[in-house]
C-alpha cells in the first residue's frame, strides 16, 4: 500500500482539518490533539465534497424528567457537515447520527516524526 506525505501535523491546528487531492482520491484529515483521522472526501448521499464542509457540534434536545422539552443545546460530539445538502457525520465514527449505515469511508492515516502519511487504498 502506497503512502503519501501530505504535510506536517503542525500544519493543521488542533481541532481543525484540511482536505487534499491526491492522484486518485481526495482526503479530509481531521486533527484532535496528536491524533488524526481521515475520510474520503465523498459524501455517500450524492457524492458531495463532504470534507470541505464545516464542523458543527451535534445538536441535542434537553428533555426534563417529566418529558417536556427544555430547548436545544450543542453537545460534545463533532460533526462534519456536507456542504451540498447538509448530511452530518460524527467525526469519531464517520456515521450519520440517524442512520449509522450511511457513513464516510475511512482512510488510513498515520503520523511519524511529525509528518502525516496517507495510505492510498489499493
Amino acid at each position, binding site marked *: 500500500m502506497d503512502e503519501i*506525505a*501530505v504535510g506536517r501535523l503542525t500544519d493543521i491546528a488542533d481541532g481543525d482539518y484540511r482536505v*487534499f487531492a*491526491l492522484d486518485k482520491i481526495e482526503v479530509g484529515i481531521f486533527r484532535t490533539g496528536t491524533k488524526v483521522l481521515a475520510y474520503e472526501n465523498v459524501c455517500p448521499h450524492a457524492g458531495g465534497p463532504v470534507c*470541505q464542509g464545516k464542523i458543527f457540534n451535534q445538536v441535542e434536545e434537553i428533555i426534563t424528567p417529566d418529558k417536556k422539552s427544555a430547548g436545544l443545546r450543542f453537545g460534545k460530539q463533532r460533526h462534519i457537515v456536507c456542504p451540498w*445538502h447538509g448530511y452530518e457525520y460524527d467525526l469519531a465514527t464517520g456515521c450519520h447520527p440517524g442512520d449509522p449505515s450511511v457513513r464516510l469511508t475511512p482512510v488510513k492515516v498515520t503520523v511519524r516524526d511529525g509528518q502525516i502519511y496517507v495510505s492510498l487504498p489499493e
Partner: protein
Amino acid sequence: MLKKTPRHGKNGRNGHKAPRVSELPKITIQTDTREILAHAAKEARAEDYFIVDVDAHVTETAFWSEVVDRMDSDVYRQMARAFKDRGPAPGLLNATPGFLHQDVFGRIPHQQRLAEAVPGGRTHAQVTLVQRAMDSMGIDYMVVFPTPMLVLGMHPQVEMEVVIGNAFNKWLAEEILPQDQRIKAMLYLPFNHPEESLKAVERYADNPSVIGYSVTSTRFRAVNHDSYMPLYSAIQATGKPLAFHSGFHWGDQSMQQCNRFISMHSISFVYYNIIHLTNWIINGLPERFPKLKVLWIESGLAWVPFLMQRLDSEYMMRSSEAPLLKRRPSEYIQDMYFTSQPLERSNIDLTEATFKAIKAETQLLFASDWPHWDFDLPNSITTLPFLDEQAKRNILGFNAAKLFKLEVPKHKRLTAKTAKTNVRVPVTA
C-alpha cells in the same frame, strides 16, 4: 477549477513516482460554483447525457435594483427605492417566515448566497452563475425561476404582485435570456390578477426563450375559478405548457402548527400542489382544455400516487360531484408532467412504484433546483437501479425536449443502444 499546487517535494516512500498533492478549500459563500460542483463535473465529463434542467433558480434579490428599475409605475419605483436607505432589503417584496432557515443555519453555504467573484464586462453576473452551474453539471438547457418571489402570491396587495412580477419578467427577458440561448424561462404570471396574467402571456408568446408560463403555487386562489378560463385558453393557444411551481409558507395558519422548519417545509411544498391539482382535476379542466399541457414543479413525486389513489377512490363513490370527468382522476394525472426534484429515494421500491404510476418514462422531467439546499444532481436519475438506459435519457432530457420543443444537439441524439453507461455507487437516500 482546482489548482494543482505540488506540496512537499519528497512524496511517496516506495520509490514510485511522486504523486501530486494539492489542497482543496473549505467551502464558503465565496467559493466558486465550479469548485462547489467539482465532483458533479467529474461525473458529467464521464457521461454523454442530454440534460434539460427544468427547474433551477436565479436570485433576483441580488439584482433587485435592476428589477425595481423596470417597474411600470414611478410611484412603486420610488417606494421600492425608498427601502434602500434602510439597508439591502428588497423593497416591496413580501418576506416569509423561515426564509433564512433554508441553509440550516450556515451549514449549506450555496443556499445562503453565491458571493463568488464573477468577471465584469458584458456578461451579466447572474448569467455567469447559471453558466457555471450548467457546465459543472453537464446541463444543456436550464429553465430558471425566481427565489423569494415564489411566495409573492401571498402578498396582501394584489397590485404588488403585478408590478413586481411584470418587472421581473422584463428583467429576465431583457438582461438574462438574450445572453445565452441555453437559459430558458417559464415566465411569472401574477396569478392573483387574472387579467394581468393574460397580458403577460400575450406579451411574451413569441419570445423563443420563454418556453412556458408559471404560477407560483403558494397562494390562496382556486385554480378552477371562472376568471382564469381566458388565461388557460390563451396559454393553450400558444402551445406552451403551464407550470405550477410550489413553495413553502410558514405564515399559513395550518403550517404554524409546525414548530420546526423541517416539518413545515416537508409538508408545505406538497400541500399547495395537492390542492391545485385536485381542483384542476375535479373541475374537469383537462376536459375543458384538452391540449393544455400542465406541469407540476418542486413537490417531489411521492405525493402523486397518494393523490391518484385518493381521488380515484372518492370519485368512484361521488362521480356526480365531478361530472366533467370521463375517466378516473388518475388517468388525467398520468397525462400531466412532473419534475423530479426533490426526488424521494429512501425506499427504492416505493420510488419504482411511483415512477410506474406516473408513467415516468414519458412524463417525468429532471430538475436540479440549483442553487437551493435540497438540489438534485443528474445522478439522482442515472443511479436509479430500476430504470433502463432509454428511460434515464428520456427523463434527463428527451421528455423535456419534446414538451418544450427544444433542439437536441446532434452528438447527443443517442439512443440507449449506442450510449455508453457509466455506473457510480448508488446514493443512499
